[in-house]
């Protein structure tokens, strides 16, 4: 059974079908990419799967469990984590604290124990601090471990989101355009990072515009166009697909 199964998924916004009748399956342990021209419905698809939007029709199964319409904070319990295309970093906190928030569900969140600083909480927090710093080094942010989030450049914030998502120890990680707005050097760093994450056993689902990166690291690619599934297959298969070529060169219709 696939880790993630999406069948006949449809989302209608006031008459507009942003995603229509999309089906696909993601096996555990692979890098699965979703590509398509602007407005193809990639981010909407992500928002549907991660619980931000409620689907109009269709099913989403994680480990065989139907998760369509389940709230995002519940999905986190099932091992789902994500980053955002337009940054969602908490600018009122330090970089390290942002990563520590990622570990939310793995901590004792009791208000009173926290206020009275129970030794168990203090110990766990100290360990978490180390863990979070380690994650920041992993994503290449060692220079920002003591920084406040609002003092960090764009490229660093994109990676901070990845570190936060990893702090949740997810089984499946959704990355929404992790390389958007980055320079070529940063992009290749993210490229390596995604591979590293996948190799550690986390399933990665990726939306990305950077074709070189997608073709490089994806085991499987889904192509969307006008909210519909256009093609699915390996990088080589997708690259040869005439429909995909037409959609990207704009010769269809």
């Amino acid at each position, binding site marked *: 059974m696939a880790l993630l199964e999406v069948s006949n998924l449809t989302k209608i916004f006031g008459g507009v079908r942003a995603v229509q009748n999309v089906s696909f399956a993601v096996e555990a342990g692979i890098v699965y990419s979703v590509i398509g021209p602007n407005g193809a419905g990639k981010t909407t698809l992500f928002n549907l799967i991660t619980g931000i939007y409620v689907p109009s029709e269709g099913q989403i199964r994680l480990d065989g469990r139907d998760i369509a319409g389940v709230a995002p904070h519940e999905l986190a319990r099932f091992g789902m984590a994500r980053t955002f295309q337009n940054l*969602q970093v908490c600018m*009122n906190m330090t970089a390290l604290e942002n990563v520590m928030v990622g570990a939310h569900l793995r901590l004792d*969140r009791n208000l009173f124990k926290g206020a009275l600083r129970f030794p168990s909480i203090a110990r766990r*927090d100290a360990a978490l601090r180390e863990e979070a710093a380690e994650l920041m080094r992993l994503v290449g942010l060692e220079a920002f471990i003591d920084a406040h989030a609002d003092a960090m450049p764009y490229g660093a914030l994109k990676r901070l989101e990845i570190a936060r998502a990893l702090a949740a120890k997810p089984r499946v990680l959704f990355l929404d355009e992790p390389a958007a707005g980055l320079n070529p050097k940063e992009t290749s760093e993210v490229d390596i990072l995604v591979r590293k994450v996948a190799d550690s056993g986390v399933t990665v689902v990726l939306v990305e515009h950077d074709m070189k990166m997608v073709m490089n690291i994806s085991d499987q690619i889904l192509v969307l166009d006008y909210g519909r599934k256009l093609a699915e297959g390996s990088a080589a298969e997708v690259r040869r697909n005439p429909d995909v070529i037409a959609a990207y060169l704009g010769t269809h219709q």
Partner: protein
Amino acid sequence: MPRSRFTGLIVIAVVLAVLPFLLPNNFYLDLAIRMMINACIVLGLNLLIGFAGQISLGHAGFVGIGAYASAVLTTHYSWSPLAAMLAGALGAGVLAALVARPIFKLKGHYLAMATLGLGIIISIIVRNEAALTGGPDGMPVPALALFSFEISGEKQWYWVLSGILLLSLWASLNLINSPFGRALRALHGSEVASQVVGVDVAKYKLAIFVFSAVFASLMGSVTAHYVGFVTPNVADFFHSIELVTMVVIGGMASIYGSVIGAVLLTALPQALTGFEGWETVAFGSILMFCMIFMPKGLVPTLAAKFGRR
């Protein structure tokens, strides 16, 4: 773990310890006590407004519930002060919990409106139920006796409140740096980001709202017993605004800012008594001036200026 977080706490403890020996008379001691009471309420409110990012323009309503629970239950029903205080806190907490779900679906100005409405309704009830509350004239409150010990005189109250304030400061500092506190700040920073890492946003907003309401109610009870008298002013809109102003002037999301804001705004009316009729104008001008030139509040502005965050 940086110990420096608690430097401020130690400084405040030292100041509190020597202050009574420097103050010339009970007038100043009384002022210090009222500053400490306000500082405690403002701490709780800052957790809600500054850290969780949820405005409340009706918090004096909860202070009023505590104050009147202590006054009414002890006077009319001869409850013990402690039981009355706890009943008030329970009432405030239950009310906060009941309205929290629908209220925190609201954002920005709609949330401001809803909390303002809640506070005003509470203050109107207090004003109208004269048979119980004495109406606009208010009513006396017996002294605070805990078991066989009775707190009386400014000196005793001063030490009791110093203890409460230091404890509240310590607990607040702990809280904001605990998993609960980080989740709270995260939902302020980005609600959706906090959701996807597993923060049940509605639950956290409810929890901190109830917590700050209960705390406000407890401090309302303390105020009532200390002053020995309550009037509906304790619950009214203007008092809510005063509390929010203390939060904002001191600095949103600043623990020590809460103390500074409470100290300054409690002292301000005293400082303005020389203005003969112009107090309101001066008070309003100072509010505007502070907010225009230090929109982030005193403590964060100064901290940024001297290179510390």
